[in-house]
């Protein structure tokens, strides 16, 4: 019995190893395909991931109903400034819905040109007018995200922090509260928090 069992386990392990190799090969293929698509929309893995994160914010955040014109109005993910995503954002949101709402992508070149945005990514090109932008969005149901240095510390809502080849989140609780948005505690738990609630 014991011998049979050990033989069986061995064979299982060997099979497992084969499967692992197969998996690695497939993953490699996918990675290759990924870099190919990366080459297509010409965006780095970092922004690919950030595009996914922007979409995921939609799933972990609740907007006041006043933020939408009607229950079926699309949730708009927008960029402000020089778009670093190319088509990555469009690729990520294709076919996705959140709470039954379709998702739209918009690119705005200036603060004045912004028509509708629920999640707004402030691009590096706007580094000069951070204070102005922060003030402009303060108290509005807009989830403003940026890569810019000290964005959250200075009153911005969410900042992507790249550290050790990983993207982390920093959330300013005061700004969040003032914006009437409700962010899932699960999101908050995985984020670094700044600011105070009062």
């Amino acid at each position: 019995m014991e011998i049979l069992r050990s033989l069986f386990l061995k064979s299982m392990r060997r099979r497992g190893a084969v499967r692992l190799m197969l998996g690695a090969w497939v993953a490699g293929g996918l990675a290759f395909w990924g870099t190919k698509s990366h080459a297509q929309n010409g965006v780095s893995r970092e922004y690919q991931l950030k595009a996914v994160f922007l979409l995921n914010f939609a799933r972990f955040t609740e907007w006041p109903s006043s933020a939408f014109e009607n229950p079926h109005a699309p949730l708009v993910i927008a960029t402000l400034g020089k778009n670093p995503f190319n088509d990555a954002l469009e690729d990520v949101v294709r076919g996705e819905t959140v709470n039954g709402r379709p998702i739209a992508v918009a690119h705005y070149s200036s603060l004045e040109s912004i028509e509708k945005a629920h999640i707004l990514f402030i691009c590096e090109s706007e580094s000069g007018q951070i204070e102005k932008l922060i003030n402009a969005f303060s108290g509005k149901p807009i989830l403003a995200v940026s890569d810019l240095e000290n964005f959250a510390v200075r009153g911005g809502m969410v900042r992507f922090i790249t550290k050790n080849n990983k993207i982390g989140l920093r959330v300013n609780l005061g700004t969040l509260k003032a914006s009437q948005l409700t962010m899932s505690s699960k999101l908050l738990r995985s984020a670094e928090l700044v600011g105070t609630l009062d």
Partner: protein
Amino acid sequence: MFLKNSSVKQKLMAIVLITCGVVLLVTCSAFFTYELRTYKQNAIEHISTVAQLIANNSTASLAFENEDDARAVLKSLKAEPHILEAVLFNKDGKLFVYYPENLSTNTFPEPPFRLGYEFVQSDLIHFQPVIEQDKKLGTLYLRSDMGAMNERLKLYSLIVLCVMVGTFVLAYFLSKVLQGQITRPLLALTDTARAVSERSDYSVRAAGTGNDELGVLTLAFNNMLEQIHSRDIALQEAQQKLQGHASELERRVSERTAKLSETVAELEAFSYSISHDMRAPLRAMQGYSSYVIENFGDKIGPEGMHFLNRISRAGGRLDNLVQDILTYSRVSKEHFELHPVDLDILVGDIVQQYPGFQSPEAQITVQTGLGVVLGHEASLTQVISNLLGNAIKFVKSGMKPKISIFSEVHGTEIWTKIEDEGIGIAAKDLHRIFRIFERVHPESTYEGTGIGLSIVRKAMERMGGVVEVESELGKGCIFTIKLKRA
């Protein structure tokens, strides 16, 4: 049945114990099965709950690729010691984080994952999708140890075993005590029945018990004994009475027999003495009438002679009668002992001595080898000469008598037969011929005293034998005398 020959006590106890055992076994099995099911169900529900909780808490970690947070979430499983492995895979099925940290990643399952629970060997595994807002973000894999269940089942088995043994022992002692309710009256009944059958003592009674069936049975049994007892007593009384009657009857019979034989003896003595005393006057009458005929015949005249001759002949007949009666009484009374008698010699002598038995008067054929019998020679001579005399006498007038004598051996007896071709005897008369003074024919046809066959019968009886006759009217007769072989 295996209990067929054991006592009621053993049967009762066996019934109780078997019933108890079976009931316990069934109950415990049901309990056990239920427990197993419940435990499995609970384990499944529990792992499903835990999985949902962890998955729900891991959504953001997966969504924002925060491995530290995911690890922290999985670490909360520390509170669940039965969870051996927990692994989070991202939405592509790639390993994200796992718990505890010392696991070998080689043994982790690989996609595609079959959602839901499954028992693998002694463990329970569960795959839970990690979903946020209908969006699948990854998969959680949990492996739970079912060793606890096995531990618990072992404990249950032990408890069941203890309960069974305990109950069995309890049932044993209880039944041992309680079965007395049934067996005690039964044993009392059995003892009583045994006493009755072994000693035929119907006065014993079974000890009575309550009003149940056994009580009724005991009562009925006692009633039965009561009845038998009273009948037994009645029977004994009746027997005693009967015995009294019988002995009374016997006494009376012997009394009467004594009286009767006394009378018979008196009668016989009387007839003997009369016969004997009659002979002297009879001789005188015969003698003097012969004398008168010889010496004074011419003086009396022919008519006187005729009457005198009649007187003489009548005297002769009376003498024959007296002689026969004397012979009969002698045969009846004489004491004699039995000796072997050679019938060949005896019959030969008889035939030779009597002129009437010889040719040409008669034709007598005697077969040789008649045999030797136990008898009294003189009486046997009387018997055979009487029978031969009858055979010669009872023929149609003018016929020559033809007689044959022969013997047959029957066991210890010799049957000697005397067969004639005479006139025979009618069936209605057969029963009369051996009685004294009975005559079938009037004396005027065949003279005789009517005593001859009585003498034959009496003599045969005295010798312990029998005389029989077969006959038909006109066809002769066969007389058979049966005697013991010497």
